């Protein structure tokens, strides 16, 4: 019989048919009867006192059901939005956690902050009425830059943080690192900004609150990456509602990239308001709202130094970063520039000592939180820009300096807390240099020169920690939640299988990948497996999808549940075949008695479990339904090597990417087609960061200058090249599938490769991201002038 093992094959996606025919159901597609529409009145100022709000005109406008302000929220006893990770500062003090109100309380601290909500019969009516809400603001000076916010005399956002500092946190042995720097043969120092990004999932955020008097329960449809966490935070911390009376559904979600992890005030308001007016309340962000109210990403100002011996061996690294967290602490804001950043500074290298100090600062900007990669792109940028620069300064080939410093023995304990279980960094770098034909580069550079173009090449060898996380480790580092995942495998009497996962797919293709895993393990056709996600009333629990964790943590939870099904199946099969349980083996969907020709198929065992006429009732319950929680014993460590070649037009400064090679090691791969798709998408977001995306605020007024898609530049098809992608495989050692995760790699590794290539092409040491045409043109002009 043919093997049912379809792990490692590019099975076409189950979910595609509905998406291709308009059958997807996203939150805004949900249309409850008698729905009303919410429009939020948002702050036009970056920083202002609210002296008063007049809502009477709006309340009387046509079609309006209610207008609520911060006062109503306070009266209702609704708390602010919590932060899920406590960072303890260098003095052992907890970080400053100012309240993050659902609707502004007396003060606004960024453009776009929610001030009031108007709910009406139609969206037009709600919008018209929202303009009638009169807010009396006393405008205050604003500060948008992290470094500026720490200066004496800077405008103060929160009373509890008079220096606008949320925390100063550090990792590593400072004294040791300082010592090494004093005597090192060579040191390289760079100062740069990791530019603030606005995620821009193409589906805007949306939420529909719907209270049922009949059930005294709420249903919230929301574009979320983790509906259970959303419910837990909302019920236990913000609204004080009974968790089991709130049903959160995250249906099809049109991309997340981090921005839909968090609990947002809009979600709380529509849920609460639906009970107040006894009607469903629907809110969908327009793009302008998304720009100012979705959590942003990155925004680091960093000084980074590398100490090397005369042969280019890394001796120590020293990094100081100011992380702009925005006006309030979003759900996971505090752990991104610390736990998910500084712990990655070893990269792929044996740097023996590392010190990193991070200062998190409040500013009058939209809150910053995890965006694809979350901390790891910033760390990779630090390491890979330093390494490349050091190589150039020491006249060592940039690939060679990396090879001299690669970690080659595993497990490897880094000086920044992580324990890498496995890896083979030479393998990916070798493959990338071959695939990128680095040997032929010099010739291509000559050809470019003949065309009047400047060609450059850049490398980036990244590492990431994924599959977050061992809960005990996360807890010791300040996490206020566990970080396991749950899965349930329900075998039906006919042998069909429904799988419930706490992971959430918003493009990743879980309905396909997870079904491949289950079908392969049970030896049944993939069509017999249905994956259910995104619904708190169907799925027992879930921590959701972010940090490239779904296959490593969610997938493993499912595997564990499958294995329990198989274990119980063996007992049933042993009974049916009158054999000892230990003599029963299971493969390709058949239970067999070892060494005999006795066998029963999986389907018969399933039927027996539900029609238990001939059944070991004294030992077993009927039914075949198992669940499992999986809490990983370590992070996973995907890594890879990227090589990028660019051509710069010296007349305009415009960069074109001539070649982009990515060779990644994600461990075992379930569906290569889907993995490649994840890499391509990640690379494009990384290219976006390096070349075109950059959130800008006016430094005086705090106005968001990149507030529409006509000003914030997303990559288009013609901005990216045809990628050359390959993989190498060192299986993860501590999960049964040997998988590591692949969702963020491209966004993590790409910016450094690109910036290394551009700086190489134009012969400058450093360049700011995004490297727009003007930025590059200026750098060329300055170099000429010098």
């Amino acid at each position, binding site marked *: 019989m043919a093997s049912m093992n379809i792990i490692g094959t590019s099975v076409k996606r189950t979910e595609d048919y509905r998406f291709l025919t308009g059958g997807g159901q*996203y939150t805004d597609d949900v249309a409850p009867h008698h729905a009303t529409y919410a429009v939020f009145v948002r702050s036009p100022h970056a920083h202002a006192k609210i002296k008063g709000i007049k809502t009477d005109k709006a309340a009387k406008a046509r079609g309006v059901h209610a207008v609520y302000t911060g006062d109503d929220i306070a009266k209702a006893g609704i708390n602010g939005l919590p932060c899920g990770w406590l960072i303890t500062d260098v003095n052992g003090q907890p970080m400053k956690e100012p309240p993050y109100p659902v609707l502004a309380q007396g003060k606004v601290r960024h453009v776009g902050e929610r001030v009031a909500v108007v709910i009406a019969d139609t969206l037009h009516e709600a919008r018209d009425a929202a303009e009638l809400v009169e807010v009396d603001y006393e405008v205050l000076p604003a500060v948008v830059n992290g470094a500026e916010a720490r200066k004496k005399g800077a405008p103060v956002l929160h009373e509890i943080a008079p220096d606008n500092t949320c925390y100063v946190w550090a990792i590593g042995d400072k004294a040791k690192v300082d010592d090494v720097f004093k005597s090192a043969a060579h040191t390289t120092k760079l100062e740069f900004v990791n530019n603030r990004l606005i995620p821009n999932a193409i589906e805007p955020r949306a939420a529909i609150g719907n209270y049922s008097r009949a059930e005294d329960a709420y249903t919230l449809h929301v574009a979320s990456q983790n509906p259970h966490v959303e419910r837990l935070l909302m019920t236990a911390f913000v609204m004080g509602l009974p968790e089991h009376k709130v049903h959160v559904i995250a249906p099809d979600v*049109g991309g997340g990239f981090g921005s839909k992890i968090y609990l947002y005030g809009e979600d709380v308001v529509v849920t609460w308001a639906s009970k107040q007016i006894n009607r469903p309340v629907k809110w969908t962000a327009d793009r302008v709202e998304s720009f100012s109210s979705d959590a942003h990403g990155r925004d680091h100002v960093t000084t980074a130094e590398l100490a090397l011996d005369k042969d280019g061996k890394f001796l120590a690294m020293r990094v100081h970063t100011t992380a702009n967290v925005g006006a309030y602490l979003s759900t996971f804001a505090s752990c991104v520039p610390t736990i998910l950043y500084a712990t990655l500074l070893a990269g792929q290298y044996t740097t023996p000592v590392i010190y990193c100090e991070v200062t998190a600062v409040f500013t009058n900007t939209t809150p910053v939180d995890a965006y694809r990669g979350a901390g790891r792109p910033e760390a990779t940028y630090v390491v890979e820009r330093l390494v490349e620069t050091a190589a150039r300064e020491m006249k060592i080939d940039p690939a060679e300096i990396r090879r001299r410093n690669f970690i080659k023995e595993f497990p490897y304990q880094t000086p920044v807390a992580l324990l890498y279980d496995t890896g083979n960094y030479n393998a990916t770098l070798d493959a990338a240099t071959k695939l990128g034909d680095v040997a032929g580069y010099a010739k291509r550079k000559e050809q470019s020169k003949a065309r009047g173009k400047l060609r450059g090449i850049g490398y980036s060898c990244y590492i990431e920690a994924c599959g977050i996380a061992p809960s005990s480790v996360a807890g010791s580092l300040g996490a206020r939640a566990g970080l396991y995942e749950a899965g349930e495998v329900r075998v039906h009497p006919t042998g069909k299988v429904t799988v419930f996962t706490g992971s959430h797919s918003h493009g990743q293709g879980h309905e396909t990948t997870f079904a491949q895993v289950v079908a392969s393990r049970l030896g049944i056709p993939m069509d017999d497996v249905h994956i259910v996600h995104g619904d708190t009333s169907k799925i027992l629990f879930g921590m959701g999808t972010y940090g490239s964790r779904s296959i490593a943590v969610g997938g493993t939870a499912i595997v564990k549940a499958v294995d329990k099904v198989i274990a119980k199946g063996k007992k049933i099969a042993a009974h049916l075949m009158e054999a000892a349980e230990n003599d029963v083996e299971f493969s390709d969907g058949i239970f067999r008695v070892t060494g005999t020709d006795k066998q029963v198929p999986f389907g018969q065992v399933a039927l027996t479990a539900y029609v238990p006429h001939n059944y070991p009732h004294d030992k077993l319950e009927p039914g075949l339904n198992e669940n499992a929680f999986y809490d990983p014993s370590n992070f996973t460590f995907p890594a890879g090597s990227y090589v990028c070649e660019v051509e710069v037009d010296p007349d305009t400064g415009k960069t074109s990417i001539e070649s982009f090679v990515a060779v990644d090691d994600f461990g075992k791969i379930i569906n290569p087609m889907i993995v490649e798709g994840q890499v391509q998408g990640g690379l494009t977001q990384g290219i976006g960061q390096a070349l075109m995306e950059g959130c800008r605020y006016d430094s005086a007024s705090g106005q968001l200058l990149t507030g529409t898609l006509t000003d914030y530049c997303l990559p288009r098809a013609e901005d990216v090249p045809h*990628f050359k992608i390959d993989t190498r495989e060192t299986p993860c050692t501590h999960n049964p599938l040997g998988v590591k995760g692949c969702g963020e790699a491209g966004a993590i590794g790409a910016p450094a490769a690109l910036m290394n290539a551009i700086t190489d092409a134009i012969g400058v040491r450093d360049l700011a991201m995004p490297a727009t045409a003007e930025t590059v043109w200026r750098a060329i002009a300055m170099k000429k002038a010098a």
Partner: protein
Amino acid sequence: MPVKVSMTVNGKPVSAEVEERTLLVNFIREHLRLTGTHVGCDTAQCGACTIEMNGDAVKACNMLAMQAEGAKITTIEGIAAADGTLHPMQEAFREHHALQCGFCTPGMVISAIDLVRRHPNPSEEVVRAELDGNFCRCTGYHNIVKAILDAAPKVAAMR
């Protein structure tokens, strides 16, 4: 003052009383409940709302329903065959994994069909350039371009 608007959508005549300020995309999504046409931005950049009007791809979020009075409209729901068989472009998107979250997909497919009708044998460069009215944040466009190149001769053969 509501106005009456009539058009043919996916081969079916439809009409409704709407507010003058009703955008075509809202008419399609809310009045006709054809929710495959999506709204991703306010400034006619993203292309998620792309539909076909009288044979041309247009952005349904950037026009009034009244501007489509009397027009023949095709939305993503009208692209596959009546028996559910995918159009070659839809099939190519599936085959080449040219979609992830699916949100941009309807607009992308309509735009792609329009593209290959005008360029029956396009180069990769042409495909990339002609996709400048559609954003995808998931795929990095790589597989979308592959799918369109693959589907082009098949779509040409349909006519």
